[in-house]
Structures are given as C-alpha cells and as structure tokens.
C-alpha cells in the first residue's frame, strides 16, 4: 500500500472508530434507560 492509501485508510479508520464508539455508547445508554424505565410502574413513568 502506498503512503497515500495509508493516509486515506487512517482518515477513514479514525472516522469509523470515532462514530462507532459514540454510536455504540449512545445506543447502549438509550437501551439501558428504556429498560429501567419499563421496570418502573406505569404510574411513576407518567410523573417524570
């Protein structure tokens, strides 16, 4: 692989890593909040 392709690969790799980690964290946090909220009774859910 030439140096040019290395720079292209690193640039796209960084973007994939950054977005991948953030999307995974966001999806996990979202799922956890949804699950914990569902455990709470329907009455408490309305109060929030």
């Amino acid at each position: 692989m030439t140096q040019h392709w290395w720079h292209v690969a690193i640039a796209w790799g960084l973007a994939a890593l950054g977005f991948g980690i953030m999307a995974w964290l966001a999806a996990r946090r979202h799922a956890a909040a949804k699950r914990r909220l569902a455990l709470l009774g329907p009455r408490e859910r309305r109060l929030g």
Partner: protein
Amino acid sequence: MSTPAPSSPRPLASTAPRGGGLHRFANPGRFLRLTDRLLPWLWGLAAVVLGAGTAWALLFSPPDWQQGETVRIMYVHVPMAWLAMGGYAGLAVASLMSLVWRHPLADIAARELSPAGAMVTALCLATGSLWGRPMWGTWWAWDARMTSVLVLFFLWVGHAALVRAFDEEERGARAGAILALIGAVNLPVIKWSVDWFNTLHQTASVTRIGAPGMHTGMLYPLLVCTIGFTLLFAALVLAQVRAAVMERRLRQGQLAQARRQEGAA
C-alpha cells in the same frame, strides 16, 4: 455521563410550557413518543446512506488529477467540517432557547450535543492533517482557517466540560449556554477566514458563487457521504437526548415511588 445529579433536576412534564408554536415540542412526553418510532429508522437510514457513500467515495469515484488517491480523505474531512459548524449553529440555537425561553429540552439537547460536536471537530482536524502532510508538505500551519477551527474544537470541549462541572444542572446549563453563544462569533470567522485573510487553506469549492469547482464524479459522492454522516450524527445525538430525558423521568419516578412508600409506612 449517566451519573444522576445529586440535586433534584427541574421537573419536566409539570413545567412543560403551555401554548402553541415552538412549545408544542417542549413536552418531553410528546418528544419521547414522537422520536420512539423515528430513531430506529434514523439508524437504519444512516447505515444505508453512509454505506453507499463510503463505497462510492473509496471504490467508485475517480482520483484527482494532482492529489491522486489522497483526495479520498476529502470525503470525510469536508462532512466533518460542515457537521462541526452546523452542529455548533444548532448548539447556539439550543442555547438561545435555553436562556430566553428556559426550554427544558434545549438544555438537554445542548448538553448531549457537545461531546459529539467535539468528536466531529477533532476528526475534521485529524483528517485535514493527514491530507496536509502529503499535499501541502506539513501536518499543521497556524493560518486563520486552521486556527479558528482549533478554537471551535476548544469551544466544544469547553462547553461539554462546563455544563457537567456544576452540581446544580440548571446553573451548568446556563453557563454553557452563555459560552456557546459567545463562541458563535467564531462561526463566520471560520467560514470566511479563507476569503478575508490569505491562508494556506484553499477557498471554498462547493459553496461558492457560480459552479462548484469540483467535478460531479467527486461532488455527488461527497454529497452522499455528507448526508450519511449527518444522519448518523443526528441518530447518535437523538439517542443520547432520549436517554437523558428517560434518565430524568427515572430519577423522578424513583423519587415519587420512595415518597409514596414513606407515606404508606
């Protein structure tokens, strides 16, 4: 990020402003219902568009006559730059709504926007550096464009840190909103820095008066990549905002539950 604040947060549903217009979306319950079905579609659409854009940019678009294959960095760099600035414009609008109308969802949106904004700005700087080394012959230069984008990065990081630095969430949100609005003067400076000052960075290719200085063989994949990255950015920020709203309801629900049990005992 998900640690519950010790102070009791501003109750959401009970203060949902009355009246029409903008405030119809201020009701967190309605927000959660509206976005519940939207979010999976947003993730899916982002994956499809970004997948197509990536394939087009890396495999099916031509090299540049003088940059060669290095031009493919542009398909990440330019969307990141646009997202960094567009996201900051969104942060400024949220901050205005937070300061003037005390819109509770605006506080949460601003708080959840800044880590993602800091990330795209960092990616913009990093990919620009990776492009600059073989093309310009340097990783970095202190010209007006690059310096002003570095300032934007510090604003994002500063905002993310500031809103989390207070025990009382509302005070953090107020301080962050003021910082975000002051920092908004940087946006026009970034945009027109390449025209006002002579810089190492080239002037705009796509958003210029007259025809874009880019062949359609590169312009179209750039636009698809931009849409894809924007959808992904929107999906992950929306997921964080939804999670934050649900966490607040959870805290208030638990509080109410505890109070009821105390009363019963």
